[in-house]
C-alpha cells in the first residue's frame, strides 16, 4: 500500500514537473517585451475603476459555509458506507441502516433548515426600485 501511495506522490510531482517543463521550455522560447499598457489590467478597454480586491458579497461566503458542513458530513459518511455491506452480510443490516438513516436524517434537517431560511437563494431580496439618476453616468 505504501508503494501505491508513493506512486500517487510521484504523480503529483509529475503534474508539477509537466507544467514546470512546459512553462520553462516556453521561457526559453517566448519573447519578453513588457510594456506598461500591455501589463495593464483588462477592463474592456477602459482604465480600471478601482481594485478588484474588495469586500465581496456575503452570498459566496454562505455557500462556502453550507458546503463545508455538507462536505464534512460526506467525509464522515465514507467509512460508514464502505462497511455497510459487511454489516449487512454479517446480519446487522437493519442496525446499520438505522444508523445511516439517523445520520442522513440530521443532514436532511440541516438542508431543510437552510432551505426554509432562504439561504439557498442566490438573491435574498431584490433591492428597492430607485429612480434613474443619469447624472452619475459620467
Amino acid at each position: 500500500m505504501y508503494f501505491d501511495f508513493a506512486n500517487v506522490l510521484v504523480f503529483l510531482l509529475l503534474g508539477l514537473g509537466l507544467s514546470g517543463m512546459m512553462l520553462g521550455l516556453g521561457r526559453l522560447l517566448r519573447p519578453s517585451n513588457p510594456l506598461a499598457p500591455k501589463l495593464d489590467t483588462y477592463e474592456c478597454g477602459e482604465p480600471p475603476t478601482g481594485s478588484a480586491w474588495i469586500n465581496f458579497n456575503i452570498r459566496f461566503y454562505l455557500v462556502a459555509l453550507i458546503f463545508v458542513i455538507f462536505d464534512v458530513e460526506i467525509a464522515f459518511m465514507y467509512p460508514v458506507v464502505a462497511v455497510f455491506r459487511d454489516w449487512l452480510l454479517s446480519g446487522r443490516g437493519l442496525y446499520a441502516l438505522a444508523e445511516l438513516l439517523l445520520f442522513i436524517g440530521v443532514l436532511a434537517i440541516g438542508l431543510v433548515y437552510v432551505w426554509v431560511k432562504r439561504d439557498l437563494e442566490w438573491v435574498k431580496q431584490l433591492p428597492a426600485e430607485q429612480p434613474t439618476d443619469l447624472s452619475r453616468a459620467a
Partner: protein
Amino acid sequence: MKQLVLQLTGEGGALAGVPYHLVAALAMLVFGAIVVFVFVLPVAGVTSWLERRVWARIQSRVGPNRVGPQGFLQWLADGIKNMLKEDIIPTAADRVLFSIAPYLVVIGFVATFAVIPFSSTLVIADLNIGVLYITAVTGLVVVGVLMAGWASNNKWSLLGGIRSAAQIVSYEIPAGLSIFPIVLLTGTLSMQGIIQAQGWAPWHWFLFHSPFTFAAFFIFFVAALAEGNRTPFDLPEAESELVAGFCTEYSGMRYLLFFLAEWGNLYVIGAVVTTLFLGGWQIPHVTDNPVLLAVLQFGVFFLKSYFWVFIAMWVRATLPRVRVDQLMSLCWKYMVPIALVNLVGTAIWMTVVPARVDRLVQIAMTLAGVAVLVRFFLRVRFQLRRAKLRAVDYYYSPII
C-alpha cells in the same frame, strides 16, 4: 509494478544490489512519465481537437482541418504557438499567486490518472481509497481557479473565480453523494474493486442495478460536468458575460494549462463514470493471453469513457448556459435532495430486496434504458430525415 521492482532487485535480478527504494522510485517515475506523456497529454490535446471538430459538425461548419490529416495535429500546433507567446503578468496582479495557479490546476488533473484503472493490470496505483482520492484531488482545481481569479486583480477574473469556487464546491456534494450508492453496493472504495463487482454485460452494470443507481448516475454525470466547468455550467469562463472569466488576464502557456486541465478533466469524468456505473474494463472471457487481454480491456475502457467525453461535447454544443442563481438552486434544491434519496434508497434496497428480485430489476432497468435509447434515436432520425428532404428541395447545393 511492485512485482517487477521486486524481481529486478531480488536475487539474480538485473539490478541486484541496487537499493530497492531507488529502483522503486525510478520505476514509478518512468511509468508515471510514460502515462503522462504518452497518454494524458495526447488525450487532453486530441480531445481539444476532437471537440472543435464535433462542435463544428453540429454547427454546420468545418472546424480545424489544416494541420495534419483532418487537422489531427492541431493541438500540437496550438501548444507550440502558445509556448511561443509572451507571458504577461499584469502589474496590478499578485505575481506569486498568479504564477502558481496553473500549476495547481494541472496537478489536480494529472494526479487523478494515478488511480484510473485502464484494465485489470494497467493501473498505476490501485488505492484502497481510490474514489475518495479522486474527489479529493480534483478539489485542487478549484483552489487553482480561485487563486487565478483572485490574483489577477481583475473584476471579470474575480467574478469568474468566485463563481467557479461556489459552483465546484456546491456540485461536489451531489457528486459525492452519488458515489455512495456504488460504495454501498460494493463495500469498497477501490476503483478496481468497484469494477470487479460489475460484469461485462449491461445488466451487470451498476447503472442498471436499481432505479436509485440509475438516478445516481445522472446526478453524478451532471455534477461532474458542473465540476469540470462544462456547458451548461461554464459560468466561470462564460465568454459572453465575463469575457474569459478567471483566465482573462492569462496568456500563452499559462492560459493553455488551464484548458489542458479542462480537456483532460473531461476524460477523467468519463473514466470515473465508466468505472462507477458502466462496468469499467469488464469484457467477456475471450482470451487468456495477458497482453491481448490488457489491450482489449484498455480498448473497452477507453471507448466507454470517451463516449462520455463525446456526450459532454454534444451537450456543450446543444445547451445554453444557466444563470448563477439557477445553478445554485439546481444543485441544492434538486440534486442534493435527490442524491440523498438515492443514498437512503440504495441502503434500504440492499437490506430489504431479496437477490432474486434484484436480478429481475436489473433486467427490467436495462430494458428501460434500451427503450429510452431507442426513443431517442427515433427522434433524432426523424430530424435527420427532415433535414435531408429539405436539402434536396433547395435551390443551392448545401454547403455542408
